[in-house]
């Protein structure tokens, strides 16, 4: 228990330090963008949030497969925790993305933008995933059904990403805003932000899974107490 707490604190420490560094890099170290000015600084944490949400949903997918293979509920707990953390970051990515879009294009949302679109699809899929879990009738059926749905939802995404390119041909193409090539300092700031958020994600996932485990322990103890009443 203490070892686990130590690991969690270590990860949190790394996350906090690297987040502070990445904020410094994003706000101070990097130059202003040639065309967009300072608003472009949204970009670092927007991309990092989006990346974390993809990672989190990917973890849900893999944990779902592992659960179906091993029937070990531990994997189901990981899948659930990761989906919840993923939804948080996905929401952040969508909000920051649309703020960035408002600054860059003058509109909050562009349906033609494939990355916005896919992020929204993922968001909807995993909202549905959480709704499924809330409506399951037993622990086992919750684990089985949500694993299957998580797998379906996740494998649809790359396909729908690819298919979307074809629908685009028939949309009036809005002139793509070029972000310009990333300068080396900007790329560095982005990498640090992604690194920082990856540790943040690891910490959140550990904590979330830990909470779920505690809930299960409580159920166990309650049963023990109930059993001794007789």
């Amino acid at each position, binding site marked *: 228990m203490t070892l686990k707490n130590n690991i969690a604190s270590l990860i949190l420490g790394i996350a906090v330090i690297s987040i502070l560094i990445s904020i410094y890099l994003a706000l101070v170290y990097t130059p202003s963008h040639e065309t967009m000015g300072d608003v472009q600084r949204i970009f670092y944490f927007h991309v990092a949030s989006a990346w974390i949400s993809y990672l989190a949903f990917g973890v849900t997918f893999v944990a779902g497969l592992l659960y179906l293979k091993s029937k070990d509920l531990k994997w189901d707990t990981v899948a659930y925790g990761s989906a919840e953390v993923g939804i948080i970051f996905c929401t952040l990515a969508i909000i920051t993305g649309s*703020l960035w879009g408002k*600054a860059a294009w003058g509109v909050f949302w562009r349906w033609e933008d494939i990355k916005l679109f896919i992020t929204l699809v993922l968001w909807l899929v995993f909202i549905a995933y959480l709704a499924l879990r809330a409506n399951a009738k037993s622990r086992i059926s919750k684990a089985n059904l949500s694993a299957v749905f998580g797998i379906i939802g996740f494998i649809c995404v790359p396909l729908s990403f690819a298919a979307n390119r074809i629908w685009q041909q028939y949309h009036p193409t809005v002139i793509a805003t070029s972000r310009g090539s990333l300068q080396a300092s900007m790329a560095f700031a982005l990498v640090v932000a992604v690194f920082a958020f990856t540790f943040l994600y690891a910490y959140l996932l550990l904590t979330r899974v830990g909470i779920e485990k*505690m809930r299960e322990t409580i159920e166990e*103890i309650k049963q*023990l*107490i109930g059993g*001794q009443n007789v």
Partner: protein
Amino acid sequence: MSDLIYLYGAYTIVWAGVFFYILKLHIAQRKLENEIKMLREILNGKKSKKNL
């Protein structure tokens, strides 16, 4: 320069979101830890009663 409001908005939302989520997790964790402690005590109390 009015565009900067979007920058402030985005940063506020990201960090407030992360902060409140961590806060929520910690409150939940504390509560559960206390509950486990309480339940363990009840359980141990029962065991010792039985042994007497």
